[in-house]
């Protein structure tokens, strides 16, 4: 089975340890939701998998092969928190670059058809975010990392994105983090919480309360 996993991830920012021996795995056909408080290291973990930062220690394996940087596998897409497609590139070019295998399906989406010839600076912030999310979801890569895909999006687009993720779930593995935890709980097959520098498997919402992610814990 096609799998990506990262093990023993340890990372420091100056003296502060943000991740300590963290393990995360995702199979094709699975959506893994990554939750955690602000600053707990969720984005750092995604960047460590993708390879845009080098943690102090990690073991990254994609489909049975070890990688230092996940993106070098050419089988991993990453949606960062900020805009990443340069203004000089138009949507049609971006689709050719990232979504060659799924371009026909992507071009059936009305917003994509409407802006196919437009450059990214002609789009509003929300449109740009939505389209970048779609580009990564429909990318050629087998594994997709989405860092706060629902931020800046109106509820109707959040719901639409969830449908697209569910549609492609059979062919890809998704690791998603966002603070709209209800949406994450809705679409995820498994939930992992990053707390106190470590990973915890979450089986119910009560576990999120127990670990201090949701309010309501009383002794």
């Amino acid at each position, binding site marked *: 089975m096609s799998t990506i996993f990262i093990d023993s991830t340890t990372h420091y920012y100056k003296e502060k340890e943000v991740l300590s021996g963290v393990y995360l795995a995702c199979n094709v056909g699975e959506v893994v939701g990554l939750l955690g408080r602000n600053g707990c290291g969720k984005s750092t973990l995604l960047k460590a998998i993708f390879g*845009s930062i080098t943690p102090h220690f990690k073991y990254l394996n994609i489909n049975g092969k070890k990688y230092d940087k996940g*993106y070098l*596998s050419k089988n991993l897409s990453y949606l*960062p928190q900020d805009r*990443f497609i*340069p203004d*000089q590139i138009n949507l049609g070019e971006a689709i050719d*670059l990232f979504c060659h295998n799924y371009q026909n399906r992507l071009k059936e989406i009305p917003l994509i058809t409407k802006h196919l010839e437009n450059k990214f600076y002609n789009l509003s912030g929300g449109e740009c975010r939505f389209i970048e999310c779609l580009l*990564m979801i429909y*990318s050629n890569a087998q594994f997709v990392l989405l860092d706060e895909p629902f931020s800046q999006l109106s509820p109707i687009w959040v719901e639409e994105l969830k449908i697209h993720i569910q549609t492609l779930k059979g062919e890809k593995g998704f690791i998603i983090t966002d603070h709209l935890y209800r949406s994450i709980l809705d679409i995820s097959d498994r939930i992992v919480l990053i707390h106190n520098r470590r990973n915890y498997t979450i089986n119910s919402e009560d576990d999120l309360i127990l670990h201090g992610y949701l309010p309501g814990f009383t002794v």
Partner: protein
Amino acid sequence: MLINLLKKIIKVYKPIFAWNLLVSLLIAVLFYLKGFNQSDTYVLAFFIKLFTWAFSIGIYFMFYESTAYFFQNMGVSIRKIMTYLISCDVLIFISILTILFYVDNFHR
């Protein structure tokens, strides 16, 4: 594939590429004025190019760092992009100097 990637790199980093090209042309003028037989011109040209590349890397980190994810999502590292940009610039620079050398020799 490589040509396509080079086109994208030049498209995204057009100002950096144009700045390096301008410096190459200015160095070519220097060679034209001082001639090709003075060793100090070569040393000066080398250090000007070195400074320009260092400055370009500085510009990249100041204004273009967010574009790293664009290329990494294509499976290309920033180190590779810098290597391609500098190699392309060196090739153009050598071509300009070679053409100028033959034009200069033809006139003298």
